[in-house]
């Protein structure tokens, strides 16, 4: 495969994958289980989800390692399993991707609040990400995602670049709409996120999750206004609603297809999905991009 950044620089639009969490639930993951432990307990489920996304047209397959930093795994008393979980998660998708898609390592927030607002030191967060990044040595791409604290995000980017200097690093944050524009809950604007993440060494910046696709198109445009670097956008399928005891995401694959031209026009370079998106959403986006 051609290097990811080369393709993005040539102006190609790539398709990411969709949610893992909501797919795991569809495959019977029980509430209360550590999602990252599925990697060790039911690797075949993750391989099946990966294959579904590959068949739908995803060019990046995301590992099930969102919460697999030692700090986050410590919530379940599993921090000593961090290396095993991360390594195995990559191995599962390496086999599925078989050279047809990039294996992208998901790295989510530590779940801790940095000093002086919380009680976790920068060093502890950096060391935790460093351990996770080291265990992810066999990936093609590192994707730091759903961050709300820019300081934590830059620590993760720096750890990724220190441990794996040759790997492209994608970094996304999650924004809410305010009367003054889009900000993370910690108060970072899109422009500040963009500048801070790139300065830390990220190759691709963007946003994931959020409040539905139409807001994400505005966020993509804000990123595009702030940088010429590639922009990654992974929207959720709208704000979830509960229908007859079942969680339902309102935005359909057709809705995603319909809005994909606007997303491209806004400046997105990689388009994927977050919570509630399925292989059908990815297939719909893929069709438009071809």
């Amino acid at each position: 495969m051609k290097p990811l950044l080369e393709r993005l620089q040539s102006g190609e639009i790539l398709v990411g994958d969709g949610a893992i969490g909501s797919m795991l639930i569809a495959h019977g993951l029980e509430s209360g289980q550590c999602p990252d432990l599925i990697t060790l307990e039911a690797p075949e489920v993750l391989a099946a989800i990966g294959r579904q996304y590959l068949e739908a047209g995803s060019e990046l397959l995301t590992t099930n390692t969102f919460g697999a930093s030692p700090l986050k795994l410590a919530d379940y008393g599993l921090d000593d399993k961090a290396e095993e979980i991360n390594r195995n998660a990559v191995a599962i998708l390496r086999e599925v991707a078989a050279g047809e898609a990039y294996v992208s390592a998901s790295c989510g927030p530590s779940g801790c609040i940095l000093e002086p607002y919380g009680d976790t030191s920068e060093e502890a967060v950096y060391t935790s990400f460093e351990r996770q990044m080291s265990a992810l040595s066999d990936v093609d791409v590192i994707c730091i995602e759903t961050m709300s604290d820019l300081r934590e995000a830059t620590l993760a980017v720096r750890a990724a670049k220190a441990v794996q200097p040759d790997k492209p690093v994608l970094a996304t944050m999650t924004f809410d709409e305010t009367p003054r524009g889009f900000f993370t809950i910690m108060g970072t604007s899109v422009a500040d996120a963009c500048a801070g993440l790139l300065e830390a060494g990220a190759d691709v910046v963007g946003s994931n999750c959020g409040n539905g696709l139409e807001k994400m198109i505005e966020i993509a445009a804000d990123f595009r206004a702030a940088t010429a670097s590639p922009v990654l956008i992974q929207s959720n399928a709208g704000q979830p609603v509960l229908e007859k005891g079942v969680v339902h995401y309102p935005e359909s694959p057709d809705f995603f297809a319909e809005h994909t031209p606007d997303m491209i026009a806004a400046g997105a370079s990689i388009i994927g999905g977050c919570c509630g998106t399925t292989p059908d959403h990815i297939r719909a986006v893929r069709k438009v991009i071809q």
Partner: protein
Amino acid sequence: MDLLKEISESLQKGDDAKVGELTQKAIDEGMEPKVILDDGLIAGMNVIGKRFRDHEIFLPHVLLSARAMYAGMDLLRPLFLRDEVPSAGKVVLGTVQGDLHDIGKNLVGIMLKGAGFEIVDLGKDVAPEVFVDTAEKEGASIIGMSTLLTTTAPGMVRVIEIINERGLGDKIKTIVGGAPVSQDMADTIGADAYGYDAANAVETIKEMVGV
């Protein structure tokens, strides 16, 4: 400047040392602890809550102000125990089973304490039975359930079912909140109330207990 106003403004600035110092000064001057709490600390925290809700300030600012509030509360607490100031009510709080996000729940807890409530914080990933058992044992009139994940709604439903099974519906009321929760969802699962953010949750709980 009025001492209470000064406490409120120092709290809004997140200056915990100053809030501690001024609270001590107010106590030394013989001011009523309840007045210091209501018109100094809580007054300041109410402004912070509103500004956070209006997106004028962000989480770091709230956390610093909360810390400043604790600096004052720590000095007042022994006096309250001495004077037996009645609490506004008791609330059992937790993030529902399957969810480990607790920033929102912690904020609600901080602000409820600020409003004079007693809090039993069960932490995160709390089983439905534990919510109800604790509320019964502690004599709490409110159970507050928080979630960030959409997949944990059945846990909230289960808490409400258990309350009804045990015939506690008159004694224990429920309030739900968190990013994916809406008034519709609260109605669907049969929760007594919905708090759309931390400040609103506190206001709603105040209405529920009638303070």
